[in-house]
Every structure is written in C-alpha cells, then in structure tokens.
C-alpha cells in the first residue's frame, strides 16, 4: 500500500530523515514512536507530500507521491490526515468542516455530502454537534471531528500525527477509542504517538525512530518485551519510565 524507499529529507544543513525505508501493507496498523526530534512526524508528512523530500521515493499503491503536482493531489485524496492541533476550519461549523472536502474536492452534492457527514458524526459520537463551531468544542471533540473530516473523503490510508498529544488526559481515551474502532474496521493506518499502551494494543507493527533513522521495527509484543537494538532498549526504558 505505502512504500518509502531510501527517503532523505533536510531542513538546511539539518538531516531530518536519513535513508528511511518503510512498507505498510493494506489493512496494517503501523505505530511510529521515538523521542521528539527523531523525524517521525516528518516521515508521516512525506507520505501525503506536506513535506518535500530530497532523495528516495514515496509510493502509494503504484504511483510516486512526489513525482508531480497531479500525483500529490492524488496522494492526498487517498490519505486522510489527523493533526496534533486538530486544525479544524474555525470559520465553519462541524457539519461544514466535514462536508467541505466531499463538496469541493470530490464534487459531491451538498445533500450527499451531508449524509456522509452525519453518518460519520454518529460514528465519532458527536451527532448533536453538527451546527456547533469548533471554538465551542473540547479538544477531544475537536479531534473526533477532525477524524470525521478526514474519513469523509473515503481515504485508503489514515495518517495520525500525535493525535492525542495536545489533549487533556481525560480526553485522550475518547479519541483513542475512535482510532481503535477504525483499526478494527481494517483501516490501513500510520500513527505517530507517545501512547505506549495504545501502541501495544493496536499496532500490528511498531517502528522506532531516532535521529532520522528507523532503529527497529517489530510486532508490539516482541518490540516491548525484547528490543534487539541497544539504543532502542535505552531510549525505550527512558520513555516507559514516565
């Protein structure tokens, strides 16, 4: 489904991704963890072209994301992204946030888009908030709307960029529950997170990144109980301590 081959990315002289390769199969849930500044968010953002790359290639299905403007738009229609800061459109109510993509990008009728949106708002548990503006919602509710907005485009892959990092602790579980539900439905997902419990429970594979390289990837049981790489072990113990 997704294939990254020898991807390089720099910000000026700072190398953020160094020769990163990763494959995600259809229906697989891959969780990327690692210390901050390890390049995990950047890696995720190269998949839908929010970040350019300096070398290597990123494929979704069979086409190269970064090869042309047209491919970039195609990649973004196949992927849905959920951001740490929710990034709901502040001037639109919840329903309009969810329908704007189907209407303006997929040229669906308003009625059809609203039908999709209402079903999705039920799915994320917020049907009564359709006409409320984002500023009136809690962080957890905003993030669930953001998930609905991404799903409204019927993406093949969902990308989550630290979806719970900006949330108050009591709201984390409501968002994780929605993401777990998607995993059960068989959605292909790449999730960048600090939630180790979530990674253990939902991931088919855990990818550990540090300083722009993938140090280790393994199924969660194996990864958490018996990390092979010395540095993974050290960093992991530091993360798991708190």
């Amino acid at each position, binding site marked *: 489904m997704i294939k990254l081959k020898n991807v390089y990315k720099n910000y000026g002289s700072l190398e953020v991704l160094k020769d990163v390769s990763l494959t995600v199969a259809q229906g697989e849930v891959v969780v990327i963890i690692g210390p901050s500044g390890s390049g995990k968010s950047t890696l995720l953002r190269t998949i839908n072209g929010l970040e350019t790359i300096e070398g290597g290639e990123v494929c979704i299905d069979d086409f190269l994301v970064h090869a042309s403007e047209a491919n970039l738009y195609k990649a973004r229609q196949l992927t849905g992204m959920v951001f740490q800061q929710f990034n709901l459109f502040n001037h*639109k109510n919840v329903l309009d946030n969810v329908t704007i993509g189907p209407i303006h990008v997929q040229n669906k009728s308003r009625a059809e888009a609203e039908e999709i949106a209402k079903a999705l708002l039920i799915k994320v548990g917020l049907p009564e908030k359709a006409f409320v503006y984002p500023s009136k919602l809690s962080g957890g509710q905003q993030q669930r709307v953001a998930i609905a907005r991404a799903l409204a485009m019927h993406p093949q892959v969902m990308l989550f960029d630290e979806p719970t990092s900006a949330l108050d602790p009591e709201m984390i579980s409501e968002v994780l529950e929605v993401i777990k539900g998607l995993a059960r439905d068989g959605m292909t997902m790449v999730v960048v997170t600090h939630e180790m419990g979530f990674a253990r429970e939902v991931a088919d594979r855990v990818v550990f990144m540090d300083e722009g390289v993938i140090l280790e990837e393994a199924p969660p049981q194996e990864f958490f109980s018996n990390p092979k790489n010395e540095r993974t072990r050290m960093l992991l113990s530091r993360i798991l301590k708190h």
Partner: protein
Amino acid sequence: MQHLDFSVLIEYLPAIMDGLFMTIKISVMSIILGSIMGVGGALCRTSKSLLLRSIGNIYVEWIRNTPLLIQILFIYFGLGVFFNLSPMVASVLALSFFSGAYITEIIRAGIRSIHRGQREAALSIGMTEWQVMRLIILPQAIKRILPPLAGQFITLIKDSSLVSVIAVTDLTYVAKNIVTITFRAFEVWFAIAAFYFILSFGLSLAVRKLEERLAESD
C-alpha cells in the same frame, strides 16, 4: 459681522444632493475596485513567485510613497496625454490604485495571521492551493481584518474630496461653487462636513454590525 443663514442650503439642496450622489458613486466604485486590487496585490505579495512578489512590492511602495493628489493629477493629466479619460474614470482609477495598495498590506497581514495548520489541513483533504486560499484562508483573514479595512474605506470616502481638483462634480466641488456664488462659506462647509461625517460614520456602523454577525464562530 454677517449673520448665519442656513436657508442657502435649502436653495442649493438639489445641487448638493447631486454632489453627494457623485461622492457615493465614486467611493463605492473605488472601494470595490480597490478591494479587488487589494486581494490581487496581497496574493502577489504572498506568492511563491519572485516576479509576482516584486510586482506587488513595487506597486505598494510606489503608491504609498507618493501623494494621492499627485496620483490624481498624474492619472488625469499625465495619462490623459495618451488616453482620453473622463474626470470620473480618472478619479475612480486613482482612488482604487491608492486604496488598493493599503488594502494589499491589510489583507497580506490577515493572510499571514492564519495558522499554517489551517492550510495543511485543507491541503491534506486534497484541496488545490487556490481552493485553500479561497475557501479557508481568505474568509478567516477577511473576518480578522474588518476593523482596519473599514478604516481604509472611510479614509477613501474622505480622500475622494481631492478629486474635485479635476472638476469631478462631487460634494466638495459643488460646495466650492455654492460658496463662490453665495459667500456663505461657514454654512456650506459646515453642512458638507456633516455629509461626509454621515457617510463615513454610517459605513463604520455598518461594518460594526457585520463584525458582530461574523463573530458567531468565535
């Protein structure tokens, strides 16, 4: 000392109304054209293309650093050498170019004040750059810049009095004529000031109402 006599205003009311109508007409046309130029200018100033950015810069700096009166005279008499511009057309052009430069800067500031996450979210659902600008960034930016924008529109209404120098029969031009005939300078200029006040203050009230309505999503 002469006694004040406001009855002269009644006598010349039809002429004053014509002038008022001309001032409103020029102002409205210049506000619309100036806003379009402002959006265009702001898109140039925030563009990825160096050429467009340079054009935007030159436009803004050239207009902001020369007097409006000179711009009016240049467009009417200067460009008048090559094109046959009516006073009215020359006025609207001058005022639109002038206010467009300031509106460019106001809109640019508004665009830059929108968090980049809004753009990224819009791109991530597959929108084109133009859709992102039109559907996501500009609506939020314009809401945020309404107060300075209203200030600019009010400035434009008041600055429109300068076009009387190229014989546009606006409020100011009409007033000058009435004063020449009647010598009632105090009464006439006082009344004309009141008309400008009503126009400007009315506009500012209307924008305030609009702001309140748009505050719904705050």
